[in-house]
C-alpha cells in the first residue's frame, strides 16, 4: 500500500480544530503549571510544616509516577468520588499539576540561588520582608528561572498529546478519528507530527528571544 497524502486535505478543518484544542490545552496547562509552581515553591520555602509536608509528599508522588497514570487517576478517580468533570478539564488539571511540581523545583532553586547578602542588605535598608521579596529577590531569581520554565512549557506541549488517551479530541485524537475513516495512519500521524513540530518551533523561537533579552539585561 503506497502513501497517499491527498486524503488529508479533506479532513483539514477537523485536524485544525484538533490543533486548536492542543494549543488551548497547552496554554491553559502552562498557565496552571506556572502559578501552581509559584504557589508550591512559596509554600515549600516559607510555609508552615503542616502544609509543607503534604505538598512535599504530593511532589514526590507526581515526580515518581508517569503523567499518563496521573491522568487516568484524575479522570477516573474524580468520577469515583462523585465529581464528574469533562475530560478536557481533567487533562488540563493533570498537565497543570504535573508540570507545577517541576516548575516549583526550578523556582525554589532560583530563589535560593540569590545571595543571602541581598536579602540582608535589603532588610538593613529598611525594606519589609515582602518588599525585599518583591523588589530584590524576584527580579534576580526570574533570570535563572525563565529559561528552564520555558523548556517545561515546550515539554508540556508535547505531553498534551497524552490527553488523547482519556478521550479529548485534540490533535492526536482528531487524527485517530480521521484514520478510523480512511485507514491511513501514516499520512495523518505525519501531518500531526508536522503541526506539533511547527508549534514547537514557534515556542522555541519565542523562548530563545526571551533568553537573549535576559542575557542582555545581566
Amino acid at each position: 500500500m503506497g502513501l497517499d497524502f491527498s486524503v488529508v486535505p479533506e479532513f483539514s478543518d477537523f485536524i485544525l480544530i484538533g490543533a486548536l484544542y492542543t494549543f488551548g490545552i497547552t496554554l491553559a496547562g502552562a498557565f496552571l503549571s506556572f502559578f501552581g509552581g509559584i504557589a508550591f515553591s512559596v509554600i515549600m520555602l516559607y510555609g508552615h510544616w503542616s502544609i509543607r509536608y503534604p505538598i512535599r509528599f504530593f511532589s514526590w508522588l507526581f515526580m515518581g509516577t508517569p503523567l499518563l497514570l496521573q491522568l487516568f487517576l484524575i479522570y477516573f478517580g474524580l468520577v469515583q468520588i462523585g465529581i464528574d468533570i469533562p475530560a478536557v478539564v481533567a487533562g488540563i488539571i493533570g498537565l497543570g499539576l504535573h508540570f507545577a511540581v517541576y516548575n516549583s523545583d526550578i523556582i525554589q532553586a532560583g530563589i535560593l540561588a540569590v545571595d543571602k547578602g541581598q536579602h540582608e542588605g535589603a532588610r538593613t535598608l529598611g525594606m519589609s520582608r515582602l518588599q525585599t521579596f518583591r523588589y530584590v529577590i524576584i527580579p534576580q531569581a526570574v533570570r535563572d528561572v525563565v529559561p528552564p520554565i520555558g523548556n517545561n512549557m515546550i515539554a508540556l506541549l508535547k505531553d498534551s498529546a497524552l490527553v488523547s488517551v482519556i478521550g479529548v479530541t485534540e490533535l492526536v485524537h482528531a487524527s485517530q478519528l480521521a484514520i478510523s475513516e480512511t485507514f491511513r495512519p501514516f499520512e495523518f500521524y505525519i501531518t500531526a507530527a508536522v503541526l506539533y513540530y511547527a508549534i514547537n518551533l514557534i515556542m522555541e523561537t519565542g523562548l530563545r528571544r526571551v533568553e537573549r533579552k535576559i542575557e542582555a539585561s545581566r
Partner: protein
Amino acid sequence: MDVELMTKVAPFFIEAAIVTVQLSILSIALGLVMGALSAAGRLSSVLLFRMIATAYVSVFRGTPALIQLFLLYFGGPQVGINLDPFAAGAIGLGINIGAYMSETMRGAIVAINRGQAEAARTLGLSRFQAFYKVVLPQAARLMIRPLGVNINAQIKATALVSAISVVELTYTAQRYIGSTYRPFEMFALAGILYMIIIYIAGRGVTYLDKKAVIQ
C-alpha cells in the same frame, strides 16, 4: 482503600512491572547508542553527518513521543515495517530518548575545556586519540548525572506504550481501573511499583557517579 482487592491483583501488576523494566532497559540501551552516534555526528567535521544528526535531534525532540510510537506501530505497516507492539514500543522509545541523550552527551563533551584537546594534540596524540583518551573520559563523568535524569524520565515514558497495547504497568492499571472502578487503589499499586523501579535505577546512577568521582 480496598486492600484485599489490591493484594488479589498485585501478582498481575508485578508481572506487568517486569515488562516495564524490560522495556526500560531495552529502550535506554538503544537510546544510549543513538545518543552517542548522533552526539558524534553533531560534533563531526563532516557537514552531512552534522546535518543528519541535527535533524534527528530536532525532529524527535520537537514532536510528541506518542505520535512517534503511533507512526511506527500503526503507520509502519504502510511502508513495510511490521513490528509487534513490544518491539515497536522499545524501538520507538529508544529512538525518542536517544535524541534527548544526544544533547546530554554533547553538552558534557563541549563542557570539557578546549585546552585539554589542544594540549593532547601538542603532545603528539592524533585527533581520535585526543578525543578518546583525554576528552571522553572526563566528559563521561559529567554525563552520568544528567543521563540519570534522562533514564528517570524514560522509565516513566514507558507508560506511553500502553497506548499501543503493550501489557505493561500502566496498561494493566488501566485495565483494572476499567473492570474494578477502583482508580485510587490501582494507581497506588502501579505508582508504588514505578517508584521502586525508579528508586533502584536512581541508586545505580548514584553508585556509578560516586565511582567515577573516586577514579
